[in-house]
């Protein structure tokens, strides 16, 4: 039984980095046996096909535009996952990931269990920015949800006493703490001084209408936990 825990998204685009930050946190805190692989999938899209193909269990962390209040966690399982990822696309890579699943299906090696742990982003149009507080606060709860699934599948990691220094993201310059600490100090000022598109109301990303939770047809995480 192979389990792949995959974080996807672009960590340079504020809340878009959520999925990658979740696997980063898991890799710092927990040690797994060889049957479990944690992967920073970035925006690799179809290049992730073989990793997904080799997995029996797949957990995906991602920022998904569910049309909910920012920071809302929503978990989707199995057949719902591809439908859900195809419903709306906030980012480039989601087109890619739906294709990954379709291709894996064509090849006849679809994962037996599939879980998408998603959070509603607040801001993705902040190039070079980091997670917004409301989204960042959901890293630990989402890691807990993943651990909860793993436990049900009979997988229990060893908890590290201290955060491991080796960073799954590769370059430590991209690790969450350093990424935030070393952000150009005049980034905002500079951005405002130079009327950039990202801050221009005429062209900026307009967040979607927030739906009521009762509008949602798929179970919310809060309802899922028994």
């Amino acid at each position, binding site marked *: 039984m192979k389990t792949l825990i995959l974080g996807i998204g672009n960590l340079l685009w504020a809340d878009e980095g959520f999925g990658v930050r979740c696997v980063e946190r898991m890799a710092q805190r927990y040690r797994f046996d060889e049957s479990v692989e944690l*992967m920073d999938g970035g925006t690799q899209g179809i290049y992730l096909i073989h990793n997904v193909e080799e997995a029996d269990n797949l957990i995906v962390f991602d920022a998904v535009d569910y049309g909910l209040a920012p920071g809302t966690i929503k978990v989707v399982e199995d057949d719902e996952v591809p439908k859900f990822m195809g419903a709306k*696309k906030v980012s*480039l890579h989601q087109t890619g990931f739906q294709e990954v699943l379709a291709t894996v299906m064509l*090849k006849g090696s679809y994962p037996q269990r599939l879980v998408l742990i998603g959070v509603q982003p607040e801001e993705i149009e902040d*190039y070079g920015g980091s997670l917004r507080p409301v989204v960042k606060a959901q890293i630990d709860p989402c890691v807990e949800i993943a651990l909860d699934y793993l436990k049900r599948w009979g997988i229990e990691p060893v908890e590290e006493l201290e955060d491991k220094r080796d960073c799954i993201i590769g370059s430590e310059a991209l690790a969450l703490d350093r990424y935030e600490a070393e952000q150009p100090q005049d980034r905002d000022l500079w951005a405002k001084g130079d009327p950039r*598109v990202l801050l221009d109301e005429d*062209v900026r*990303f307009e967040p979607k209408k927030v739906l009521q939770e009762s509008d949602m047809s798929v179970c919310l995480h809060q309802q899922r936990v028994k």
Partner: protein
Amino acid sequence: MAVIKTPNNFELDNSGRRVVVDPVTRIEGHMRCEVNVDENNVIRNAVSSGTMWRGLEVILKGRDPRDAWAFVERICGVCTGCHALASVRAVEDALGIEIPYNAHLIREMMAKTLQVHDHVVHFYHLHALDWVNPVNALKADPVATSQLQQAVSPHHPLSSPGYFKDVQNRLKKFVESGQLGIFKNGYWDNPAYKLSPEADLMAVTHYLEALDLQKEFVKVHTIFGGKNPHPNYLVGGVPCAINMDGDMSAGAPLNMERLNFVLERIKEMQAFVKNVYIPDVIAIASFYKDWLYGGGLAGQAVMDYGAYPTKPGDKSTDQLPGGAIINGNWNEVHPVDPRDPEQVQEFVAHSWYTYEDETRGYHPWDGVTEPKYELGAGAKGDRTHIKELDESAKYSWIKSPRWRGHAVEVGPLARYILAYVQGVEYVQEQVHSSLARFNELAGTEFTTSVADLKKVLPSTIGRTLARALEAEYCADMMYDDWHRLIQNIKNGDTATANMEKWDPSTWPKEAKGVGTVAAPRGALGHWIKIKDGKIENYQAVVPTTWNGSPRDPMGNIGAYEASLLNTPMERPDEPVEILRTLHSFDPCLACSTHVMSEEGEEMAKVTVR
């Protein structure tokens, strides 16, 4: 507008019906394309617009130059390694760092692996469906497919009728499940598709084989870069040590066992490209022998910085030599210098940016990125929902880079034309043998005269073929790199990094540098300015900016726009021909621009007015 002639000799006529394709699908990033067709549905005007914006300088200003590679590796999901390599080269150039020979060879192998991997994935996964009809493959006779395969790729072992029957059954099940998935973005009853059902089935089968093999190819990055996706790079060399007698534990230095593993992967790449990829491209092309459209700018103006030197730092040893060809004169190749402020310049007269004087361009070291989003008076719709662009005004988030004021095409086809006319024997031999094979299959009689080559090479098919040939060349060059690496290690040199100037205290107060890479899509350059140990300015001019650029202040059109002109469309509301030609460039908008429109579409949306 009546008919106008651009300074680079294209005729534009926007009086006919307007076809709008937005988004252009199966590409990385967001792109919009508008064309006008005449009464015979022939494209007479083309407008290419990047509908996203990006600002690399926003994320890099003030950071440590030694970290830049890790950030630029994230700007796009496709060409991660090219940006990382261009970045470390730019920093090394600025600081005067020379890397060890081993590091040079390892970087070469990583870059060429990426080239082979990217070209294979592009052809089978992003481009093949412009030529191949998977639904038609269901009608194929597996026995006849097996015969076709044996004729087309005699050295490929997977060719039995049972094998094709099995693939066909899987495909059938997949299509019948109602979830066409990857094949849903298609116009499967459009007469623009010309393959026989057997050729369609063979191509779909190879699509699945390519999927299995590409994962093996990228293991080279895991060995040399420590991990994949997102392999590690290092200013001063490569982040892996060499110890030929070392063990295989994780994080241990490179040893003979690992290097032998790399050699096996290189041989796999050679075999697949030679036995499957190139034969497929030529076989498919032979069904489209009457469709030699899409050349555009390629016949007259191409550019590359040059790549793959056998002696590090010596451009005269480039195995794909750079240069610029202008005005269609293949007898003269102009030298290209990315540091010369008069050569590479970016213009914004038709881009959503502003300069004080928009008749001039800026060299990347002096690059200015100040957005100015406004639609021309002739545009239809409003600022957030554009129905039709006005190309006489600003109309794209992509700038217009020019070489000495000339619009040029970049990419594998540009590199191949440059190599061919500069007498690279390997390339000439490839072109001649491909042409002979094409003649054989298609019954055509093209010679290797310049006049004939100018009919065949500058075309959509030629662009697709050049990519396949470049993959073969890269795999073969890599084989040589591998043997040179082993020889150099045997000679006692195990250095992989030069850390003399790692410490910022050894750096000058101010420095600037440039790094260039032959990225899969074309010439890539990163320009950096360093001040007080931090990044002061950082600009990347990426291949899609060159090819996808809007008009410049002089009125020259770019490569995408030029390539669509004079192409007849079977059905204007089904843009098969537009997608086919645009895909032949392997557009990658993710790094040339930044997301603006967030609503993805399942299928290219087409409006005809």
